């Protein structure tokens, strides 16, 4: 199939605005009559609130209102567990929780007033470790867990700190381990980390009376936000209008809801004013959401020939103070921890556990990097025990046509080809012998494989609208947020292909407004190109049908006899009999003004077919929907003197189905790899014993800089078209980060002969093991 606009690079539609500094992000918007909000956070990570006195703060200069959670009985949840209130009531459950919001005429005056709020706390025992918290029945972070409303796919355990328990029971685990000649087992840990999108979270909220509100937010999920805010106050959803301007990176940290319920609640006390709140960097790290936070153990069994017979795992997620946004992560980590292998007998228990830390939310790949660390380290250990190449062992067990995955779904050829991905990685990394250890360096090479499914609402959908201008140019409108991934440009190229029109004639939406944008569940789970792209194609075909219907009247021919080439509708049997698209877009107007036909505006939607929540007893079902497979590999060296890891080459090969834009897909992949390198070698949220984050800034929480780039990155996209993907495209966005940690840890083993099961692996730790 030859394409004109798919698989090619064009200038991104948002590039000009972004290189000239004219792209407007949330903090760049201004509103008349703006008031500023600042937030009081507690000095304790777990404490009962005895009293809050706001009198002095209310009298402070410039203050319009001081809002606390006292008397607020609202509980909200964005995903399906309503366990959070907009401001702390009765107790605080993490040190970043909002206790009071001051609304004042300036940020400075609001800050000064914060200091005048008096709060009496009764400190409680702080729980940070998820395993300890899961076992502790004396200290409960949510005493009323049993009363919270939740979706039927959530399994809280009232009377404990466990707010969700996902069980996978595939086959017979005892039989599986009986069949195994060899087993390998290890304990794993991936600590809490910070998404660190460059743009801090921000929100502006303006109530019109108490019944209608307009919100501007740096959100990945404007429609979800609309629903959550409306439900908090019992309002029709349509009374909440959400705008999303340019978003400066998100990586999941701006999905679901974070700061918006708090500001919406507070701003309702000052209707008519735009109440503005932009997080400080510290607040992004202490008071929005964090990612990961998994501790667990896993065991893999195999026959001596290398067939995997059994996989067992337990994963405990330090979900933080609220479980709503963690539950899907727990589920997806559970069924993906098995890895991209056909294993008949699997038993996984994944627990979402309340801890006194900021809530965990979606973070690039959520659940998958945690699970992938387990499966891919175990596979390497197993290969050594079996004295087999780790690549061969993977090939023996890869999911492929006819095999069933952990969910019991049958994998088909069109789901992707792991063998091709691994072949590419093998050629790039293992073609030459590994350099021998020298005075300065130890050398190592490693690989890992991965799979990723989306996980979200089962009715998650994307909608598209196409409308023609009088000259035949097109407005393309969707509700997917472009937070840098290039969503708008991808949609534009897909529309150009489907409409057979030059890119220049297609103007794509640049911001979201729930009043005007078509519905989108959330821009998460790497789903937008896939689902939004399908919606674009369906909508384009509908629009073309309208043009054809209009033309059929003019050309006096049945619709099915007509063809379309982007510029004309023509008679298939005689293309010279034609009428221009631009003459058909508002119906067809005859000389004299008589007009017939429809206005060419169309909309359509798309969602995953037969997508359901996992079965409650076995944790299986059609819960993946669509899969992306891939393999990564690296060649690295470790400096003996410093313990520093230098990645000379990093290779990523994913079966992406179809490349929409080579430049943008490479940008996604190499960016995800560097983020993964940060996760593996540098990044970790640190806590003091009493539960305060001690590195909530970029001076101490070190992100990768340009100096951490691998010497070379190779990206090879395999293109096995997906049966239902837009022009065969598959999801790819979070995926590049999923297997980076096991890839590097496998290479570190190769270099040092030492096993690491915990990230990050720092130079100090490496020095420690190399000395021995």
């Amino acid at each position, binding site marked *: 199939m030859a394409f004109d606009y798919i698989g090619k*690079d064009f*200038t*991104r539609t*948002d*590039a*000009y*605005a*972004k*290189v*000239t*500094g*004219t*792209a*407007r*992000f949330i*903090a*760049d918007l201004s509103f008349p009559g703006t008031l500023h909000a600042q937030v009081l956070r507690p000095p304790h990570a777990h404490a009962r609130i005895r009293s809050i006195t706001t009198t002095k703060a209310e009298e402070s200069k410039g203050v319009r209102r001081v809002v606390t959670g006292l008397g607020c009985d609202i509980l909200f949840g964005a995903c399906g567990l309503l366990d959070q209130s907009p401001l702390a009531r009765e107790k605080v459950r993490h040190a970043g929780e909002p206790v009071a919001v001051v609304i004042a005429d300036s940020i*400075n005056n609001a800050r000064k007033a914060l200091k005048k709020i008096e709060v009496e706390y009764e400190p409680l025992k702080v729980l940070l470790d998820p395993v300890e918290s899961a076992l502790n029945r004396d200290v409960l972070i949510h005493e009323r867990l049993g009363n919270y409303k939740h979706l039927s796919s959530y399994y809280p355990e009232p009377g404990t700190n466990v707010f969700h328990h996902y069980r996978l029971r595939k086959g017979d685990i005892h039989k599986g381990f009986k069949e195994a000649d060899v087993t390998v087992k290890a304990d794993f840990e991936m600590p809490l980390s910070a*998404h*660190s*999108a*460059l*743009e*801090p979270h921000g929100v502006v909220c303006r109530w019109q009376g108490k019944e209608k509100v307009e919100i501007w937010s740096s959100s990945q999920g404007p429609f979800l936000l609309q629903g959550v805010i409306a439900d908090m106050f019992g309002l029709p959803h349509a009374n909440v209008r959400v705008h999303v301007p*340019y*978003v*400066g*990176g*998100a*990586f999941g940290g701006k999905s679901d809801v974070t700061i918006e319920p708090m500001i919406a609640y507070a701003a309702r006390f000052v209707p008519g004013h735009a109440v503005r709140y932009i997080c*400080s*960097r510290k607040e992004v790290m202490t008071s929005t959401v964090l990612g990961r936070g998994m501790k667990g153990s896993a065991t893999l069994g195999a026959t001596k020939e290398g067939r995997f017979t059994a996989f067992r795992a337990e994963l405990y997620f330090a979900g933080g103070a609220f479980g709503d946004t963690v539950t899907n992560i727990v589920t997806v980590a559970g069924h993906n921890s098995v890895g991209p292998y056909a294993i008949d007998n699997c038993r996984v228990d994944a627990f979402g556990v309340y801890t006194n830390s900021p809530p965990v939310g979606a973070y690039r790949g959520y659940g998958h990097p945690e699970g992938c660390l387990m499966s891919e380290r175990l596979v390497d250990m197993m290969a050594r025990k079996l004295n087999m190449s780790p690549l061969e062992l993977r090939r023996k067990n890869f999911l492929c046509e006819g095999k069933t995955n952990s969910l019991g779904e049958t994998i088909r050829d069109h789901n992707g080809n792991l063998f091709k991905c691994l072949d590419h990685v093998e050629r790039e990394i293992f073609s030459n012998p590994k350099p021998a250890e020298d005075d300065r360096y130890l050398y190592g090479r490693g690989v890992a494989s991965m799979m990723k499914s989306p996980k979200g609402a089962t009715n998650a959908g994307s909608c598209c609208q196409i409308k023609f201008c009088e000259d035949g140019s097109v407005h393309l409108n969707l509700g997917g947020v472009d*937070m*840098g*991934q*290039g969503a708008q440009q991808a949609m534009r190229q897909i529309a150009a292909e489907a409409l057979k029109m030059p890119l220049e004639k297609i103007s794509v939406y640049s911001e979201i407004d729930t009043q005007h944008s078509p519905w989108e569940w959330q821009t998460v789970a790497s789903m937008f190109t896939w689902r939004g792209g399908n919606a674009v194609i369906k909508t384009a075909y509908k629009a073309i049908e309208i043009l054809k219907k209009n033309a059929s009247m003019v050309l006096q021919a049945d619709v099915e006899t007509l063809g379309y080439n982007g510029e004309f509708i023509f008679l298939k049997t005689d293309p010279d009999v034609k009428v221009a698209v631009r003459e058909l877009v508002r119906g067809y107007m005859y000389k004299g003004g008589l007009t017939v036909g429809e206005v060419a505006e169309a909309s359509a939607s798309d969602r995953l077919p037969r997508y359901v929540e996992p079965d409650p007893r076995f944790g299986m079902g059609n819960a993946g929907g669509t899969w992306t497979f891939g393999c990564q590999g690296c060649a690295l060296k470790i400096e003996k003197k410093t313990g520093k890891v230098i990645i000379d080459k990093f290779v990523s090969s994913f079966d992406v189905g179809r490349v929409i834009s080579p*430049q*943008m897909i*490479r*940008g996604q992949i*190499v*960016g*995800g*790899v*560097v*983020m993964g390198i940060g996760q593996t070698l540098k990044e970790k949220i640190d806590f003091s014993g009493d539960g305060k984050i001690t590195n909530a*800034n*970029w*001076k101490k929480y070190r*992100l*990768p*800089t*340009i*100096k951490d*780039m691998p010497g070379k*990155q190779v990206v090879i996209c395999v293109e096995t078209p997906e049966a239902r993907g837009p022009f065969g495209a598959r999801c790819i966005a979070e995926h590049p980060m999923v297997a980076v940690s096991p890839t590097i840890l496998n290479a570190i083993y190769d270099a040092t002969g030492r096993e690491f099961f915990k990230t990050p692996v720092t130079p100090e730790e490496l020095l420690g093991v190399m000395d021995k």
Partner: protein
Amino acid sequence: MKDTVNLTVNGVRYSVACEKSESLLDILRDRLGLFGAKEGCGYGECGSCTVILDGEAVTACTMRDKERIDGSEIMTIEGLADNEGNLHPLQEAFVESGAVQCGFCTPGFIMRLYALFDKNPNASANEIREAMSKNLCRCTGYEALWEAALLYQKRMLGEKDGCARK
């Protein structure tokens, strides 16, 4: 207590009354309505607020020295394209290389590189890397940013040698 500072921004002269605590970034954004420089951290670690002050790349969020700001010439991202809105070759290199994803760090990186190459067109790879390591990007993995810097330098030097290629 307010200070009055006189400064020239992108060739336009301003006299601004501002609080002692205000940074150059506050002045640019809140007083002059120039929103191109961004605040990512507020303490000079991410470089998203990088502007050029008397030829030097500075993080505007940490620049509070009113004596230094007073009488200075500032260049921000808004001053880089020409009056017709045509992109500067450095901006073009960013677009072509795919160095723009979310765009939040973009103005800072562009100003950092503009200052570097303005002073030192022949900057070595190490010097370029050193300069760019003062800015953070979370989207691109730096590869496309790096390529944009090299592409711009190559073109700029090519033009200087009189062998510009289209």
